[in-house]
């Protein structure tokens, strides 16, 4: 009996065996992929496989890039995507696909027990196909992980304004790169939030990493400092290089009621002094 026919006819049995094997081999991550989801994905993949076997010539000319295999590749990509998002490892992903072999082999050996030559050919065929499927799933997995990492990285650099509590009642936030209104707003919100949560009395904004302070950046700094004061805390701007200091003066920007320091260390010692913290015994 031909491979395609066997898989079509014995679909339910193969699926049931596969689900059982998944449980046995520990490839079913019940913590991240529900049993129902797992069954739906397994069914989707097996159906695609049955269809592709029916529509393509599964002899020596087997070619996974043949359009007839599109549904299988799509099913793999879909499964890979949902599993990547739920944190399944690539090994688990590969095992999940590979575990389909056992259930097909069992059925094949039952149906073609009287034709060992055909059985061996079919086992070889299934091995080739399933290995290709596992490879495809892994490469889809890697692509998707990369996309996720890239997205996370850009989100981090865009949005991150990590407010750090460096000492009791002292919080600090670095301002980095080009300061647009969106980032300045994010920094201000994060800082004000941290002042409340950490019960801070001094907030240090470190602008060492800022390339240019023009009137817009200065205005954002002034607004932030004013808001910090309204919260009952004091605002220190540190990391003002001589270049930036001169530029600010030429621009004519006045920073009233804002303590400024050349570097973060000086900003910190000012804060310690303010809070009466004794350093070095």
């Amino acid at each position: 009996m031909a491979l395609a026919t066997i898989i079509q006819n014995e679909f339910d049995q193969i699926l049931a065996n596969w689900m059982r094997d998944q449980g046995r081999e520990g490839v079913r991550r019940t913590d991240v992929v529900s049993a129902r989801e797992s069954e739906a994905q397994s069914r989707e993949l097996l159906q695609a496989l049955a269809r592709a076997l029916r529509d393509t010539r599964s002899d020596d000319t087997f070619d996974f890039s043949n359009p007839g295999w599109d549904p299988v590749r799509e099913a793999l990509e879909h499964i890979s995507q949902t599993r990547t998002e739920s944190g399944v490892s690539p090994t688990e992903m590969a095992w999940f696909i590979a575990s389909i072999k056992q259930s097909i082999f069992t059925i094949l050996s039952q149906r073609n027990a009287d034709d060992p030559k055909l059985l061996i050919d079919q086992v070889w065929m299934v091995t080739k196909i399933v290995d290709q499927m596992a490879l495809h799933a892994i490469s889809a997995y890697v692509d998707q992980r990369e996309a996720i990492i890239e997205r996370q990285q850009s989100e981090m650099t865009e949005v991150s304004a990590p407010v750090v509590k460096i000492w009791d009642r002292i919080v600090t936030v670095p301002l980095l790169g080009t300061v647009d209104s969106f980032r300045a707003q994010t920094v201000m919100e994060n800082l004000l939030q941290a002042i409340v949560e950490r019960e801070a009395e001094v907030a240090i904004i470190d602008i060492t990493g800022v390339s240019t302070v023009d009137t817009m950046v200065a205005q954002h700094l002034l607004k932030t400092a004013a808001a910090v004061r309204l919260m009952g805390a004091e605002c220190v701007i540190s990391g003002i290089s001589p270049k930036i200091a001169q530029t600010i003066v030429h621009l004519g920007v006045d920073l009233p009621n804002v303590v400024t320091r050349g570097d973060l260390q000086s900003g910190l010692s000012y804060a310690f002094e303010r809070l009466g913290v004794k350093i070095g015994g």
Partner: protein
Amino acid sequence: MNAMDRIGASAIKRTKFVTAVSEIARNALIYGGGGVMTFHLHKLAGRPSVLAECVDHGPGIADVDRALQDGYTTGKGLGLGLSGARRLVDRFAIETLPGEGTTVIMECGAR
């Protein structure tokens, strides 16, 4: 800023010029409805300089003297962009015609 590298500008000159360019570019964007900024290598009093020219076809400025005063703004800014930029560079020129647009030229030497 490549052009500033080419004339071997000092760090402080570079920072000043970049800041001035940023001010004028933002004005062209906010008030001039967008514009074009071009840079040229030039000579100022016989020494190499960088010249920036910013052209927009916005509403122009009705009273330039007033716009050049510290703290004057028709928007929500600090009103220090034009006056500040003028102080940051070695040469500053502004040409504007109401209804036609605004052109700002700024030039800066290496030291």
